[in-house]
């Protein structure tokens, strides 16, 4: 009996010792001390290690574009890591071409800061700032698209190019227990530096769209960062074919607003796809632009108009309407914004009409 008790006692002691050892290891080996990040060979910062490069840079007010909130599902947060990133992770390889891998390009959301890092990022990202803004207005543009007007407070002005986007922060609420960011194109013109408009379509169970449509109120404070993106007006005289659907209206509206302000004489045809009359919006705004811009036509197309709509405009999918209107696109430029499906379908039609792919512009998400 005594031997049994001694054996149990020894076993307990060994287990307790092992548990303590594990706790000690977790508390010491897992901890990462301060790390130095050198950016573009010039800027140096000392940061607390242990988090992703994306989150760490954000804390230092350096914002790398990311549409998925750092989950590794958008592939946007590419940065060049010259030193200290460790081996490529399986979560990164699907997003990186062999050339990118060879050039030390990594996903900032997947790289953990565990040692000193040398990274390279485009200079324009230093211009990206975080803003605090107040919701000045919320307007239902359609049954599922809301226009969100934000007055910038700190800093009070943003400078962006028509067509660029910002990232809106969603604070923790019922659908998320941590802040997440989602990308939205700015719908207002860049001349209005103190106020921006966004057009946000409701996606059932979408973290950000549910927050905006069901929880956001006029007067609320929100956080955003930006601007990002290369989509925008080109320096050219070529005819413009703008094609959008749903909330894809936003960047095109921004571009057209800027064209109207500057008296841009380019010929422009804007094809906008919707299902029925209730999905159309900003019609009056577009008709006004037709009067203001020298050579602009807005061509809304309904794929399935309700008989009660008494619709006399174009009928069919937007790609079909483009195909009917455009005979030769070889000398034109196209500006697309919509779902990836719509963009793919538009690219196909434009190629068939002779447009080189280098003349087709859209945000490559």
């Amino acid at each position, binding site marked *: 009996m005594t031997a049994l008790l001694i054996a149990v006692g020894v076993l307990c002691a060994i287990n307790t010792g092992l548990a303590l050892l594990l706790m000690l290891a977790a508390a010491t080996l897992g901890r990462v001390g301060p790390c130095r990040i050198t950016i573009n060979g010039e800027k140096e910062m000392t940061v607390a290690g242990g988090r992703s490069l994306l989150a760490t840079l954000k804390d230092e007010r350096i914002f790398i574009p990311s*549409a*998925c909130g750092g*989950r*590794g*599902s*958008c*592939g946007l947060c590419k940065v060049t890591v010259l030193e200290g990133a460790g081996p490529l992770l*399986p*979560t990164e*390889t*699907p*997003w990186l071409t062999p050339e990118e891998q060879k050039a030390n390009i990594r996903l900032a959301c997947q790289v953990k800061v565990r040692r000193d890092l040398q990274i390279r990022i485009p200079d324009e990202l230093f211009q990206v700032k975080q803003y605090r803004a107040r919701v000045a207005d919320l307007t239902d543009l359609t049954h599922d698209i809301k226009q969100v007007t934000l007055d910038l407070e700190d800093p009070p002005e943003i400078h962006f190019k028509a067509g660029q986007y910002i990232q809106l922060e969603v604070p923790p609420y019922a659908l*998320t227990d941590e802040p997440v960011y989602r*990308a939205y194109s700015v719908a207002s013109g860049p001349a209005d530096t103190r106020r921006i408009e966004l057009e946000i379509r409701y*996606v059932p*169970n*979408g*973290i950000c769209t549910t927050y905006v449509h069901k929880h956001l109120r006029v007067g609320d404070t929100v956080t955003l960062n930006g601007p990002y993106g290369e989509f925008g007006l080109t320096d050219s005289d070529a005819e413009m074919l703008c094609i959008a*659907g*749903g909330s894809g209206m936003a960047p095109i509206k921004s571009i057209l607003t800027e064209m109207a302000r500057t008296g841009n004489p380019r010929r422009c045809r804007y094809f906008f*796809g919707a*299902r029925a009359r209730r999905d159309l919006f900003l019609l009056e705004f577009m008709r006004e632009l037709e009067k203001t811009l020298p050579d602009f036509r807005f061509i809304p197309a309904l*794929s*399935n108009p309700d008989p009660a709509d008494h619709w006399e405009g174009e009928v069919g*999918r*937007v*790609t079909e309407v483009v195909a009917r209107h455009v005979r030769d696109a070889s000398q034109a430029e196209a500006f697309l914004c*919509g*779902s*990836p*499906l*719509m963009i793919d*379908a538009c690219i196909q039609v434009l190629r068939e009409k002779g447009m080189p792919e280098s003349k087709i512009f859209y*945000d490559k*998400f």
Partner: protein
Amino acid sequence: MKQSRQDDIIQDRMRPGVITRDGLLGHDRRPLRDILEADDAEVRRLGLTHAAIAARMRALRDAGAEGLGEPVTVLDHFEVRVDSVRGLLPCPFPHEGLCRKEFVDVRNLRSGGQVVYTELNIHLIEAHGFYEGLGAPFRQEPAILARVLEI
């Protein structure tokens, strides 16, 4: 079959926050190998194959994609809407390739049944016989797929 170390790694990638916010396992506590075997048995009980189920899902997706986000009537009695959002998702199983973030909403107008699945679902069923864990947001029940999609 016993759960392997590789299965453990794959199952870890299915947890919330790794590939998707809610993960692919729901409240299912079973080892991945057990989930796969249970669904495989169910598919065989239905007299089907994973390939046949995935082929039907893909055919309806392809037809619905023509609508560019608007509902399309397919084969007279299916209303199919395919929506896509920005981004791509990797598969939790170890291989290259990414799936678009697409949601396929199929309503069987004859029976009133409805299923919503993703491009990742189609791939997971076709390549891995994985229908996601019980309670996962996009868990696909083989019997419901068979009934609503008339496979």
